[in-house]
């Protein structure tokens, strides 16, 4: 296989586009590196070297005596596993020679993040947090309180996210609203242990995906991205706790530490 200079530049752009999509939608570092390298090599490069950091990718493609290097900033677009699946599928089809270089480029550019119906998500998250309240030992009144508190908090989270607020602000305000609504249950003594609702209704704000990604990045040798993700998830946890504490101070109802 012989590559001209233009073809190598084109290949580099396609490979980094794939890596950029993966990193922006919450894939772990090893998946970003492996998939990008596989796409580049399938398109004809002799090797692909890349440096993944938490918010940018630097990629060099090597072919014979030639190196082509390029950089992309990767702004966080929110976790979207459907996009990760699509890029992986394009990579596999390319390796099986079902796609050529122009088709890969066209498919990568055509990818649009799919989103579930927002009211369905609100309903499911309400049920999810209510299930957590069951695990904590709550009865059906607590179940109901948690459902309303967490659904309304999820509504606020979506509304604020649609207006592109800072994630820390979004999480603090959502936690504040969840705790304030759940404390109504304590106020009116709704159920056996209404404090459980206060603990369960904020669990929709646990940054589980960033925490798991952080630990698996560190385990697989990507210490930089791992630390960055850990810090981000920890700060999100702190801002959620901040929202909870402000709400407990204002209402005077304590659900956590007595």
């Amino acid at each position, binding site marked *: 296989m012989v590559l001209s200079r233009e073809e190598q530049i084109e290949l580099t752009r396609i490979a980094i586009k794939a890596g950029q999509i993966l990193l922006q939608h919450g894939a772990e570092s090893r998946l970003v590196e492996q998939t990008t390298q596989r796409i580049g090599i399938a398109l004809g490069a002799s090797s692909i070297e890349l440096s993944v950091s938490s918010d940018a990718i630097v990629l060099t493609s090597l072919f014979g005596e030639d190196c082509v290097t390029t950089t992309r900033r990767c702004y966080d677009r929110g976790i*979207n596993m459907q*996009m990760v699946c699509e890029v992986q599928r394009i990579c596999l089809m390319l390796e099986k020679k079902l796609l050529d270089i122009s088709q890969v480029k066209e498919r990568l550019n055509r990818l649009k993040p799919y989103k579930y119906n927002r009211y369905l998500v609100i309903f499911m*998250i309400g049920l999810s947090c209510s299930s957590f309240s069951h695990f904590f030992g709550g009865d059906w009144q607590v179940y109901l309180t948690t459902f309303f508190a967490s659904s309304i908090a999820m509504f606020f989270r979506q509304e604020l996210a649609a207006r592109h607020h800072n994630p820390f602000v979004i999480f603090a305000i959502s936690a504040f609203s969840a705790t304030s609504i759940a404390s109504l249950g304590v106020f009116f003594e709704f159920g056996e242990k209404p404090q459980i609702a206060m603990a369960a209704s904020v669990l929709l704000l646990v940054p589980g995906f960033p925490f798991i990604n952080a630990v698996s990045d560190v385990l697989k040798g990507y210490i930089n991205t791992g630390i960055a993700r850990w810090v981000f998830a920890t700060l999100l946890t702190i801002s959620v706790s901040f929202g909870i504490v402000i709400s407990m101070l204002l209402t005077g109802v304590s659900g956590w530490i007595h």
Partner: protein
Amino acid sequence: MELFTLFIIDAWFAWIPAVGFAMVFNVPRKMLIYCAIGGAFAHSLRFLLMTSGVPIEGATFLASSAMGFLGLYWSRKHLIPRPVFTVASVIPMIPGGFAFTTVIGLMELNSSGYSPEIMAIITENGLRTLFILSALSFGLALPSILIYRGRPIV
């Protein structure tokens, strides 16, 4: 028989958060059923281990490594990256309550001054968060650490 009923109830309540959070992560629609099965499987396995006397960290590790291997099978069958199934499935086991208690305890310590009781709450909850979280991620990563090492899974 009593244990079996509790086990079924636990599995029933565990699939709901797995699917709910899978939808927040925009897992493709066809894969939601696997997140539901995985969530019910992992959480009820942990429940069984904990009722038979295994501490929560060990039970979490065993449950999440079982989930890691199940995810490996599914991922090779459907040609889809593993985190798509596995992360949503372990969401019901994430120590969110412990994490928030730790940070709220720290804020309490700051506002009302040092007290050994609050310090005990912070230390216990903080360590539990750290160990459960590490056990979860390590368990999920086990197949790629032990078997696949440098190679891609799909």
